[in-house]
């Protein structure tokens, strides 16, 4: 007599019902409620992982089993079956067990952050906040809440887009952000995490909480990694100054932000606004501050500050008609370029460390090149 467990049986004709499963010496014995028992030898089993959170193992015995599936969720059953199988099925089952444990740990953390963020906002007297100026909401939003908003905006901006996860371009962008992040002083705990997305747009956006999205069009236009670093240093300053958060809250109103966190509210509108953060036009003062602190960040990171105005000049020279998005949402480009050159000249780089990135290889790897 082997181990026995409860599981779910999907008959070939459709519909699910509970079943008892016994792990016999050489085969799986499935006894669906109200139906004849089925016997599947272990070597003939096939597996797929799926279901909610990909925590279900679906077993079949092709070709005879057709559309019938045995669905296993019980961790003890999965481990016991893994011990009796080999090859692809064994790998699937042991992988699922490992993934489930990682997921459970992440869920506990996520739940804590989520509950903390919600409690912090709710306890803050949310009826006051719904009428308060955006500035108060920004000030009271805990870092966890800001991070959640940024992740939401990022998730929404990534929907339907093709992310570039691997290859020289993705590695280059990560290396640049890592160099800049290491040079940030007074970081209140933001984790700068960058995503590269396939797009003709010459743009990048830094979202509340430290998420950064870069469109591959920006890499295609830049003449060197230092120029991209210049743009990202500027964007990182917008995060540190919480400009994106202010902009988002200002557009949505405090009550919409709270509604977003509690689940509900006009999600279509909120999502639409969050997704336009790459089109957000900041005020002149915010831009000047991001330029000034961006130059300082570049210098601290051992990179030439003049790369940023050089990039703007390159873009201006190329675009006879319309400016690329990065510049069109930034007012007074000519004046900014002059000011950036002045700031760069006045900011020596104490410890120059050029980025060791093969820029030609990066550009060659971009889609549409």
């Amino acid at each position, binding site marked *: 007599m082997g181990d026995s467990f409860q599981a779910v049986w*999907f008959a070939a004709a459709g519909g699910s019902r509970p079943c008892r499963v016994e792990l016999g010496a050489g085969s799986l014995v499935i006894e669906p409620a109200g139906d004849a028992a089925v016997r599947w030898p272990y070597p003939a089993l096939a597996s797929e992982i*799926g279901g909610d959170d990909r925590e*279900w193992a679906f077993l079949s015995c092709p070709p005879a089993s057709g559309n019938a599936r045995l669905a296993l969720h019980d961790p003890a059953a999965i481990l016991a079956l893994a011990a009796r199988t080999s090859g692809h099925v064994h790998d699937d089952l042991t992988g699922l067990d490992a993934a489930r444990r990682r997921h459970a740990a992440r*869920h506990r953390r996520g*739940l804590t952050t989520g509950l903390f963020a919600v409690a912090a906002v*709710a306890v803050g007297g949310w009826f006051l906040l719904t009428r308060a100026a955006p500035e108060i909401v920004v000030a009271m939003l805990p870092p966890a809440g800001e991070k959640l908003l940024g992740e939401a905006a990022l998730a929404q901006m990534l929907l339907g887009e093709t992310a570039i996860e691997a290859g020289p371009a993705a590695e280059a962008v990560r290396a640049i952000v890592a160099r800049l992040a290491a040079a940030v002083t007074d970081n209140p705990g933001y984790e700068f995490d960058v995503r590269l997305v396939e797009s003709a747009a010459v743009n990048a956006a830094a979202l509340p909480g430290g998420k950064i999205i870069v469109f591959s069009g920006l890499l295609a236009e830049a003449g060197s990694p230092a120029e991209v670093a210049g743009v990202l240093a500027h964007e990182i300053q917008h995060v540190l100054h919480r400009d994106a958060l202010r902009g988002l809250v200002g557009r949505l109103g405090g009550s919409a932000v709270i509604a977003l966190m509690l689940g509900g509210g006009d*999600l279509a509108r909120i999502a639409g606004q969050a997704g336009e953060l790459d089109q957000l036009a900041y005020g002149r003062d915010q831009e000047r501050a991001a330029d000034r602190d961006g130059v300082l960040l570049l210098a601290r990171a051992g990179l030439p500050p003049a790369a940023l105005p050089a990039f703007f000049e390159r873009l201006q020279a190329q675009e006879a008609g319309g400016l690329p998005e990065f510049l069109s949402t930034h007012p007074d480009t000519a004046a900014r370029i002059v000011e950036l050159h002045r700031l760069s000249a006045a900011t020596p780089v104490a410890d120059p460390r050029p980025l060791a990135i093969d820029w030609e290889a990066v550009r060659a790897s971009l889609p549409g090149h």
Partner: protein
Amino acid sequence: MEDVTFEIVEAGDAPVVRARIPAGGSLFADAGAMMTMTPNLTVESSLRGGVVGALSRSLLRGETFFYLTISAPQSAGEALLAPSTIGGIEMLELAGTEYFLQKGSFLAAQHSVQLTTKSQNLTKGLFSGEGFFVTRVSGSGTLVLNTFGALMTFDLAPGQEYVVDNFHLVAWESTISYKITKAAAGWISSFASGEGFVCRFTGPGRIYVQTRNPAAFAGWLSRHLPSKG
């Protein structure tokens, strides 16, 4: 001991559920569901899961704070339970399968059914209309659901995909995986089409869908209400 039994009566546009509770038995129901009952039954509001559990349910799922427990301490009795929406009632027998429930579709259940909250990942939480948490129903026994409009079921074969509008979702089996995606290819056409986000399901498993969309109905209603001032 016998268990509580449920029966749908007055089937049609406005059905109700008749619950027969044996002596010593009890059921739990959504607050406000009790329509009529025999005088030998007792009703208690309970905070299922304790104060923290109830608070988390209320804040995070928009469910009513309290559940009702209806008991028959000494002799058998009967209660009629009604939902707050116009539409159907469906009974689900749980035995080893789990379901996720849309908020607002829970009407009643035998005490052996467990309701827990589960946090969704961020994209699902924000764009599914559910909030960060969904209700997971497990255990064994009878679960009674209510729907806005009529109820339709779809059985998905392994690997079969199907797309459902978020606000028409009632419940789905946990063997199904799902993603939130945009309804149309571009941003503007997604929102202009009125569809915004939808759930893309992959089987095997069953999906319960309601034929009317409460959010759209609320929007329609608000356009017909007289405005102040």
